[in-house]
């Protein structure tokens, strides 16, 4: 991993977050998730040689980061997670799939297409894992919320 890569990943994430209409403090927070994910994914991929493993691990980290920020900012974690995975999503894979087919190399194209799908799956599984972990850890908070169902005490006192 070149030294500046996480910086580019973060800035690209910020640009996409802006396109997704996030504003203010959310922009740098979402961008930090993208940087963090890349900083985990790139060295892991170099070490293991497996993009799926690296991206799955990075997505877990992005998911945890998103849950943390979400708890602090009181917003859905998905807002930050959707931005954080931007540098990981397999745009390059789709491009190379297309390029192989244009060059008439169908078998490489098929292999790349499969690897691309595998990468997307790895990211989804990573996010699902961190989401499940955060749900398990905050079971008590959920139980408290259920106890306060509609018809209960009006908290605002109105």
């Amino acid at each position, binding site marked *: 991993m070149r030294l500046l*890569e996480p910086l580019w990943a973060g800035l690209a994430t910020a*640009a996409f977050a802006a*396109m997704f*209409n996030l504003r203010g403090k959310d922009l740098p927070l979402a961008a930090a998730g993208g940087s963090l994910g890349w900083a985990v994914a790139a060295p892991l991929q170099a070490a293991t040689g497996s993009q799926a493993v690296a991206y799955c691990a990075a997505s877990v980290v992005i998911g945890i980061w998103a849950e943390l920020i979400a708890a602090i900012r009181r917003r*859905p974690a998905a807002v930050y997670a959707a931005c954080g995975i931007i540098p990981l999503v397999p745009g390059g894979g789709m491009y190379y799939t297309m*390029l192989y*087919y*244009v060059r008439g190399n169908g078998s490489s194209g098929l292999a790349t297409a499969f690897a691309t799908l595998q990468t997307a799956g790895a990211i989804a599984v990573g996010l699902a894992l961190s989401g499940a972990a955060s749900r398990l850890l905050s079971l008590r908070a959920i139980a408290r919320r259920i106890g306060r169902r509609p018809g209960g005490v009006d908290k605002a006192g*109105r």
Partner: protein
Amino acid sequence: MDRGDAPIDPDEALLFAADIARVMLESGGETYRSEEAAVAAAGALGGAEAECYATPTGITVSFGGLDGRVHSIVRRIKRRAMHLERVALVEALARSLVAGALDFSAASEELGRIEGLRGRGPASSSAAAAAGAGFFTLLFGGAWNDALVAAATGALISRLPPVMARRQLPDFFANLVAGAAATFLCLVARRLGFATSADATVIGVLMLLVPGIAVTNAIRDTIAGDLVSGVARGADAFMSAAAISVGAGAAYQAWRLLGGTIPS
């Protein structure tokens, strides 16, 4: 709530709950999140046994009203665009309704305000697209000049989908044309000597178009058990990817016919 015991009209509550789910889905919220928000809102407004079934293209909400009848409504979802600020605000709105911090009229007003939130203007979204394409090119190993070419191309093609949408053309054609334009412009720029690495430049620009998030969300929906949504989103992503590939592939072939070389 603050108007004592004046009951909320079940049909109005139903419309409101459906609108919550609709705004959430139109803004790129997840399927389960919009279902949960609609059910929570319907419950908070006095509906019994509220249920919501949402897919990326439509929602159904039903509940038993205080009048003892079952009320239900169908809402079609035609356009979807990422607007994460709206997703966060609608979620907060549903929560404060459940917590009793908002009454029905205040909540309706707030939902109207959220729906009226505009996206970024053309200049601002072009700038964001330019930055996105440029930084992705750097991330994929492009040089500074490649990033500048990608940024200029990205800013140009980011104007295409809104223009096509205004002319009522399906997303498929917008993706097709944008994929072709992006690739062709990058190849021309490399030929003229502005860009060095065609691969990094084209990928940087195409990152603006490729449905990476859509594929990931399709798999996430399926994992979460929203099977119909997952398959629908997967089909949507597949069609976008196919359109972009056909466009980019056509641009490469045209380039070859014009005597250019395809980068390896």
